[in-house]
C-alpha cells in the first residue's frame, strides 16, 4: 500500500459525463441538516509505537556526554511513539462520499484504519452505523496460491460464508476481468491485475461504510470506470464511501465532500471542488 504512495501521484481520469453532473447536486443536499449520520469521529488520536528507532534529539547546546548517551540509546530500548492522528472530528452521512486528501504521511491511512476499528485509538472515539470495511483484503491473500483460492480466502476474510463466496465467484471473476489467470498463482499477476482482483473481492461483500485507500490508482481506464460505478452503487444503497487518493480529479469526480488532512489534523472540510482547489494552490506554492 505504501509503495503506491509516491508512484501514482496524479492519475488522470477519463472524462465521464454521467458521473460528472451528480457531484454538485449532492453537495447541495449537504446543507440539508436532516440527513442521518453514518460515521461520527469524535476527537480521535492515534499513536503508533515504533521499535528499533528513535528520533534524533540533538541541539547545538547539547553536551558531548549527553550526545553520546543519546546515540547509544538509539540501539538499546529504542521505542518511539508516532502521533499520527491528532484530534480529528467530523460527521459523515448516509449516501455521502468523502475524499480524504493530504501529503504522504499526513495520517490518511491511519485515520481510515481507526474508523474501521482496526487501529486502536489512544483517545477519542469512532461511532459507525452498520458494517464497515477497509479495502484492504490484500493483507489476507497468499501470493503463492491461485487467484481462485484467493477469492475464497479473501471472501472469508471479509466475513462471507463459503456458500456466499461460491455464489458470487463468477461475478467476482467477471468484475476483475482477468480471465484464465484466475487459475494461476497470484504472484504471476501484474500489479494492475492483482489490484483488479483485490477490488473485485473486496466489493463482493457490500458494506455500509466502504473505505478505499489508494486502491484504484493502479488500474487502467476501464477498471477505473467500473470501480467508479461500484462506488456509486454503494452510495445508492445509502452507504458511505471514503476515498483516499492523490488524484484531485478522481476526488472531484467521485466525491461530493473532501477533508484535507495535514500532520494528523483537519485543515479543511467542505465541498470537494473547493477543498481540492485550495489544496492544489497550497501544494503548488510549497
Amino acid at each position, binding site marked *: 500500500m505504501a509503495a503506491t504512495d509516491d508512484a501514482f501521484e496524479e492519475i488522470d481520469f477519463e472524462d465521464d459525463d454521467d458521473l460528472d453532473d451528480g457531484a454538485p447536486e449532492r453537495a447541495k443536499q449537504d446543507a440539508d441538516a436532516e440527513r*442521518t*449520520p*453514518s*460515521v*461520527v*469521529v*469524535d*476527537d480521535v*488520536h492515534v*499513536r*503508533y*509505537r*515504533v*521499535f528499533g528507532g528513535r528520533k534524533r534529539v540533538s541541539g547545538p547546546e547539547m553536551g558531548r556526554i549527553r550526545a553520546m548517551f543519546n546515540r547509544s540509546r538509539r540501539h538499546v530500548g529504542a521505542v518511539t511513539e508516532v502521533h499520527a492522528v491528532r484530534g480529528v*472530528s467530523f*460527521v459523515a452521512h448516509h449516501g455521502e462520499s468523502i475524499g480524504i486528501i493530504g501529503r504522504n504521511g499526513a495520517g490518511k491511512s491511519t485515520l481510515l*484504519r*481507526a*474508523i*474501521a*476499528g*482496526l*487501529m*486502536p*485509538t*489512544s*483517545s*477519542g*472515539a*469512532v*461511532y*459507525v*452505523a452498520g458494517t*464497515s*470495511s*477497509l479495502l*484492504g*483484503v*490484500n*493483507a*489476507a491473500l*497468499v501470493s*503463492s*496460491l491461485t487467484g481462485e*483460492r484467493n477469492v*475464497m*480466502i479473501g471472501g*472469508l*476474510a*471479509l*466475513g462471507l*460464508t*463459503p456458500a456466499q463466496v461460491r455464489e458470487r465467484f463468477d461475478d467476482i471473476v467477471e468484475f476483475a476481468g482477468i480471465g484464465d489467470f484466475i487459475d494461476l498463482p497470484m504472484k504471476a499477476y501484474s500489479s494492475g491485475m492483482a489490484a483488479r482482483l483485490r477490488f473485485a473481492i473486496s466489493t463482493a461483500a457490500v458494506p455500509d461504510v466502504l473505505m478505499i485507500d489508494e486502491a484504484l490508482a493502479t488500474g487502467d481506464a476501464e477498471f477505473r470506470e467500473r470501480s467508479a460505478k461500484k462506488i456509486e452503487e454503494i452510495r445508492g444503497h445509502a452507504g458511505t464511501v471514503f476515498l483516499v487518493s492523490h488524484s484531485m480529479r478522481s476526488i472531484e469526480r467521485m466525491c461530493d465532500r473532501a477533508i484535507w488532512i495535514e500532520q494528523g489534523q483537519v485543515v479543511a472540510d467542505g465541498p470537494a471542488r473547493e477543498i481540492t482547489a485550495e489544496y492544489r494552490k497550497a501544494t503548488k506554492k510549497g
Partner: protein
Amino acid sequence: MTSAERGGTAAGGPSELAQLAARSGLKKVGSRPGLPEYVRTLWARRHFLWVLSTSRSYSRNQNNYLGQLWSVLSPLTLAAVYYLVFGLLLDTRAGTTNYPGFLTIGVFIFMAIAASMTAGSTAVTSNITMVRALDFPRAVLPLSVALSEMLTLLPAIGVMIVIVLLTGEPITVTWLLLPVALVLILLFSAGCAMIAARVVVAARDLRNLIPVAIRLLRYVSGVFFSIEAYAGRFEWGFVLEYQPVAVYLTLMRSVLLQDVAVDPTMWLTGLAWAVVLFLVGFVVFWSAEEKYGRD
C-alpha cells in the same frame, strides 16, 4: 480503552458528538466484545480459520520441485538424523525396547508442539498488516497457527506409523486412541500459542526467550530418552513426568508402542492440561482484543 472514555467525559458528561452518535443509534467501534459474543463471532469465522490454516501449511512446501512431498520427506530425514545421533552415537536407549519407534514419536510430536509455540508467539506481530486491514476476532491468528502445525503433523504421523510398523509393532485396539491424543495436543498447543501471542504483544522482548524455553523443554520432556529410566533417580522426577509436553509424548507412545502401557492417570492429566491451557489461553488472549494492531 480507558483513555478513550476519558476523552469523552473530560468536559463533564459525553461530548456533543458522542451524544449525536447515541441519538442516531451508532455503535462505537473497537471496543472489546464480551466473552460469549466473542465466541460467537469466532464460531462464525470458523471457515476463515480453516482456510487460513490449510493455506498456510500448504504454501509452506509449494516453492520447490518436490512440492508437497516435502511434508513427508522432511520429518523422515529428521528422524534419521536423530536416530544416528541419539540412538547410535550417544546411545540414550536405556529403558526402551523399540528405540526407533520411541524416538520417532518423540521427535515428531515435540516438533509440532514447539513449532506452535514459536509461530504462535509471533502470530499477531507478524500478521500486523492483516490485523490493520481486516476485521475479525484476533484469536483466529494463534488458533490458525496451532491448527496449521497440526495439519503439517498429519503426513508426519503417516511416516511415524510406517516406521512403527516396520520396527515390528502390532496394530492393537489402543491405536483407536490416536485421534483423541491428537485432539488433546491440538488444544494444548492452541492454548500455548494464544498465551505466547498475547505475551509477545505485551512485551516483545520475551520473543527472544522462546527458543531458549523450547530448548529447555526438549531436554526435560523425554524426546530422545525415557524419563522414567533417567529421572526416576531423582525425588522430583514426577514433576518431569507430569509436565504437559512429557505427558503428550507418553500418551502417543502408549497408543502406538506395545511396551508403553496405557495409563488412565496419564490420560486424565493430559486432558486436564489441554482444557486448562486452552481456556486460560483463550481468556488471556481475549482480554487484550482491542489492543492488537498498535505496533
